[in-house]
């Protein structure tokens, strides 16, 4: 095979020793820049996917002064619920232990709740402490969890695949030629659409479209002022917003 004279080889070896050190330095820099580049890309990707890693959210139905109603928590696939700040779900309510329960998501089944010893927990009114292991309730879309004085409702991202409530699919109405709707007179004995909850829950049978219709100015204009709701439902509050307030204090 091809070889060179000892003199040329000596020059090549001498040059290569510095060249290899330079290459090793470049490799290290390239590896670090690759790592940085991947991290940056991942951060950018996660910025567009704020729900990444979560299976849904828990909405507070009944809470405490520190945990107002309608606060919502993003739910990771598994974690610990308790009143400690180090927990994945922090529920600062009377009756909630520092580490109250562990939860984990199982695809196709739902959210499995495992309370720690001595921590009373109810899922849809069934106590997990007294429930038989084989009949242990699993949280699905719309299930309510009661820990201490707090009641939380689970809303899943993949709601239709994980629910025990029947969803009826209505057939589309046949096309009818457009006619002016008959004028409706407001009667105080009729239920006021504005008193209905604004956020539609599939389980309640009120869709978001219907909620929006309830705010239609055309409908509102025919309602006398004294029958308009005095106070709207409080805006949804993410639990993290509360933390920001706490830290600013």
């Amino acid at each position: 095979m091809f070889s060179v004279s000892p003199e040329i080889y000596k020059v090549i070896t001498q040059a290569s020793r510095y060249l290899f050190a330079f290459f090793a330095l470049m490799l290290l820099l390239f590896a670090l820049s690759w790592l940085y580049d991947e991290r940056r890309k991942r951060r950018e990707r996660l910025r567009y996917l704020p729900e990444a890693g979560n299976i849904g959210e828990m909405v507070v139905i009944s809470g405490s002064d520190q945990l107002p109603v309608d606060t919502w928590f993003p739910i990771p696939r598994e974690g610990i619920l308790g009143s400690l700040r180090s927990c994945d779900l922090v529920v600062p309510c009377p009756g909630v232990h520092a580490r109250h329960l562990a939860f984990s998501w199982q695809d196709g089944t739902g959210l499995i709740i495992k309370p720690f010893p001595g921590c009373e927990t109810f899922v849809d009114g069934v106590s997990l402490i007294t429930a038989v292991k084989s009949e242990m309730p699993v949280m699905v879309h719309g299930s309510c969890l009661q820990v201490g004085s707090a009641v939380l409702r689970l809303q899943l991202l993949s709601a239709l695949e994980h629910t025990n409530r029947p969803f009826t699919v209505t057939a589309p109405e046949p096309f009818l030629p457009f006619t002016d709707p008959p004028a409706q007179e407001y009667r105080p004995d009729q239920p006021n659409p504005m008193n209905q909850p604004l956020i539609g829950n599939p389980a309640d049978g009120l869709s978001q479209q219907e909620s929006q219709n309830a705010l239609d100015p055309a409908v509102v204009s025919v309602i006398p002022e004294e029958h308009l709701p005095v106070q709207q439902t409080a805006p949804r509050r993410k639990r993290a917003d509360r933390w920001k307030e706490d830290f600013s204090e």
Partner: protein
Amino acid sequence: MSKKSSPRFRFVFAAALLVLLALLVPALREGDQRLYLLAAGVTGAMLLCMIIPARLFSLDRLILSIALYLGAVGIISLATTNPDAALMQLLRCSAGVVALIIGAMVIRIISPSMLTAGISSFLGLLLLAGSLLVQDLPFPFTEAALILMVISFSSLLSCYGGAAALLPGIIGTVLLLLQGMTVEASVLALTVLLLLWAADGKIGLVLAALAVFAAIFFGAAHFGYLPAFIPGEEHALSLSTLVSSGLFGSETVTDLQNSALPASSLVYLLSENYGLVFTGLTLFLYLPLMLRGTSVAGSARARFHAVLALGCVLIFSLRIPASLLSAFGVLPLPLNPLPLLTDSLPDLAAQMLTLGLLCGISSVNETNLAEDAHLAMLAK
């Protein structure tokens, strides 16, 4: 309009070029056919592995590329003095790549359960007890046993909590101490404690575990199972070997023949032939590898994957400072080869398996993120 090349392309290109040149230069001396074969084979295999298995098994490119490069550096260190040994090292690295792919596939099969924990604990403890009973075992299986213990620990921690997960770790540490493997026992004990602290978070349990491990090490020292920590002759020899060739290596090719130094460690050969600068910069590549592993652990959705990834990073990386500090004579610990820079097949395969597990978890993370992106798209 020219497009800026990606950091991945630059790294792969530079690594392939460096390996090719490093194997061609000694080949030019005598025109050795084996070295030409190695130059073509190693570079080609590196590039092929970075393309085909990475795509087929969705492996993490950064971890795979650095692992392949460090494996190739091991071959380079042997090629200058012993081409036959370098060819054997190429075969060992090939087996290591297979182990890496197996590791990446295994992570998609195993789930945290009593079965996983039972099988991995049994196999891990069997390997440790086997090497205790059969003293002159031809292959050391300690590295493989450590990985199995970490799998068992992660599975038990995810299913039954920290207290249950401690037991195999304690038994493993005792078995390692009985064999006089202080560094390995310390690595396992530290890994278990750090994982317990990171994943379980119960300070009472961590303190109790710390007390148990302290008692075990104290007992081992009391009964004479811990070797005396006195800097020996081999530490001075190790330091002199590492610095003997200066910053950029000596002009003459050196074949290391010293029985006092660990035979399987390739870092001495590397330093003798290429100098301290090249060796140091190469060893710094462990840093992005560890950082990437930590990032994989942090992004994992399931607790089992997170604990396992962190365990793999700890098992892999805790050995590096121990090996380096003992090699430079700073710590009077037994001399051990650095990860991936070893010519011991079981150790290399176990280390590649560890990186394979990390690649597999990284791939699972990517799949989860892609599912989230799909859900977000549907929600729009």
